[in-house]
């Protein structure tokens, strides 16, 4: 088991002929992922890095048995791409695309829910389970198979933390980058139950940031339902109110969404809270060492 992806994951890349689509097709394949198809309307019949290109997701699914998709298409077309994936029967999609209007995301999110489809992102690095599959853009080099689950709202910061876990001699079960937008398909409370259920995960690293109340909701879940230990970090302690800190979702608005509120909630829920990201690997190692042997 792992979370959402595994050896049966068959990926169709939506927007495969674009620069990002092509680059990350190569990277996903190098990770060992079964990238079975690409879609770019009007470019069907071609090939990118040995992957056949189709005009529609429905065709890609029919011809290749794709069961997951990753979206690289530009923001104005991303909603359509997701609807197409859902209608074609895809039940796991990673939207890497940044700058999708949140009104579009509201439709995407609820349309996916209506069909029982999962969406990670948008504006996110995606999901990866070392040794199994990667759907998205998290760099391959930071991974090593192991038993630490990672859920994060950040991109590069996640890479650094995941890499730190590797350098500490540990490894990861599954890592999910949820994305930095105000409206995301999967939030901490959606993902935590998956890691709780995942037999390959012993501990969860949660990387939050300012804006919204996703970490506070995660804290509630951690307190009430999570049996596994959590090491948490929240970026943005020094961010001023009212400013968008790089991510569209990273904004302290009307007094809500501060790092303090999140850190306090997580701490009260029993999570071990790191002050600096570079402390995380050590805290993880220490906490794992205290786990009863199985």
């Amino acid at each position, binding site marked *: 088991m792992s979370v959402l992806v595994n050896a049966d994951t068959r990926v169709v890349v939506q927007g495969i002929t674009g620069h990002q689509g092509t680059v990350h097709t190569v990277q996903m394949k190098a990770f060992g992922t079964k990238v079975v198809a690409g879609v770019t309307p009007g470019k069907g019949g071609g090939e990118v890095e040995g992957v056949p290109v189709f005009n529609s997701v429905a065709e890609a699914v029919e011809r290749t048995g794709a069961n997951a998709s990753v979206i690289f298409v530009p923001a104005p077309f991303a909603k359509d791409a997701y609807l197409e994936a859902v209608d074609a029967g895809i039940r796991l999609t990673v939207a890497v695309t940044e700058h999708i209007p949140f009104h579009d995301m509201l439709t995407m999110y*609820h349309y996916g829910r209506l069909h029982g489809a999962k969406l990670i992102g948008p504006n996110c690095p995606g999901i990866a389970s070392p040794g199994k599959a990667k759907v998205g*853009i998290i760099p391959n080099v930071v991974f090593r198979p192991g038993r630490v689950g990672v859920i994060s709202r*950040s991109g590069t910061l996640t890479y650094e933390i995941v890499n730190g876990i590797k350098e500490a001699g540990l490894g990861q079960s599954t890592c999910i980058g949820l994305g930095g937008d105000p409206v995301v398909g999967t939030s901490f409370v959606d993902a935590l139950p998956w890691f709780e259920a995942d037999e390959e995960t012993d501990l969860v690293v949660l990387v939050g940031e300012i804006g919204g109340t996703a970490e506070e909701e995660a804290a509630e879940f951690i307190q009430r339902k999570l049996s596994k230990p959590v090491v948490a970090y929240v970026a943005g302690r020094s961010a001023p109110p009212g400013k968008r800190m790089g991510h569209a979702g990273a904004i302290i608005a009307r007094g809500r969404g501060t790092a303090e509120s999140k850190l306090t909630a997580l701490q009260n829920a029993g999570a071990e809270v790191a002050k600096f990201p570079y402390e995380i690997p050590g805290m993880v190692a220490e906490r794992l060492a205290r786990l009863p042997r199985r």
Partner: protein
Amino acid sequence: MVKLAEWRGKELFRTYGVPLPRGKVVRSPGEARAAIEDGEVPVPAVVKAQVLAGGRGKGGAVRFATTAEEAESAAAAILGLEFKGEKVKELLIEEKLALQRELYVALALDRSRRVPLLMVSAQGGVEIEGVGEEAILRIPVHPFAGLAAYERRAAIAALGLSGPTARSADQLLGALWDLFNREDAELVEINPLAVVGDGVVALDAKVIIEDDATFRHPQYADLRDDRTPLEEIAREKEIAFVQLDGDIGVIANGAGLTMATLDVLKEFGGDPGVFLDLGGTDDPKKVTEAFLLMAEAHPRAVFLNIFGGVTRCDTVARGLVDARRQIPETERFPLVARIRGNNEAEGLAILRAAGVTAQNDLKEAVRAVVAAARAPANAAGTPR
């Protein structure tokens, strides 16, 4: 965030059928006088600075007039004022209505539920942050259902309205809902919404359009007024750039990493002055552009924190060194870099060869940049 000035918000309101006081936008005391004299705006009137910041009333940017002369002098007093860094160039003159009650109505985003949120309170006319939670009714509105009649009824009951005033409010809520969705708004707020006679009237208008949706609404593309000039330039170059109050510029890749870098910097006694997120790029041209933009903010020192995941450290380093050469010697500032990840060794070598303090330990690097910013020898020390 495209924050619309009050008068622009009200123009939108008019389009959607939200009842408004009679009013006019003026840009000189003479125009203010004429608006009253010509009968376009009845007296008594209110003269309001058209700035984006809140709290205008306390700041002297809202005045009253009962004659054309008073309107003229009120306009003269307000025009040109600096209001939270923003110069007053436009005024809205509106009739001052005899109101019975002041209410609050807003539509915003409920991030957790992923739906629009209707917020209403019978305690309008004051800052909503100061209103007790129990006095605000929050109604999550499902985007697939739209603002249902039963939800409008609940809102209207919470506002304490009935009869024709309730019907007026019902119509207004429908109009706001349409506006929120069709204009891709992040926030639509009316505070106060006044009860005047048998109806409701929007005395203020706060509308924020979503930046990312302006491809659908080109009319808003030029209205981003709530940025510093450098932030505006950065936006055009698609660089995430936020000006803060300190003196150390921070460049990192990725929003989370940049925020974390700021946090570490502050913890070690530094004072961040610029947040610059390179994002996923290692395109040397982009790096150069970003660095030159940073230079224009005149930081006392700059801290670069790169994790090379997708990005390659050596490429970033090369862009940086290039950019640094383009800055005149006299304006150069100390640069401290911390890089990790892809091609880390090459990156460090390139930076060191160019005289940059570079290493791969974050704590050490942060200490170095804080020290550099504090050093009196730092000639470029003219924080903006």
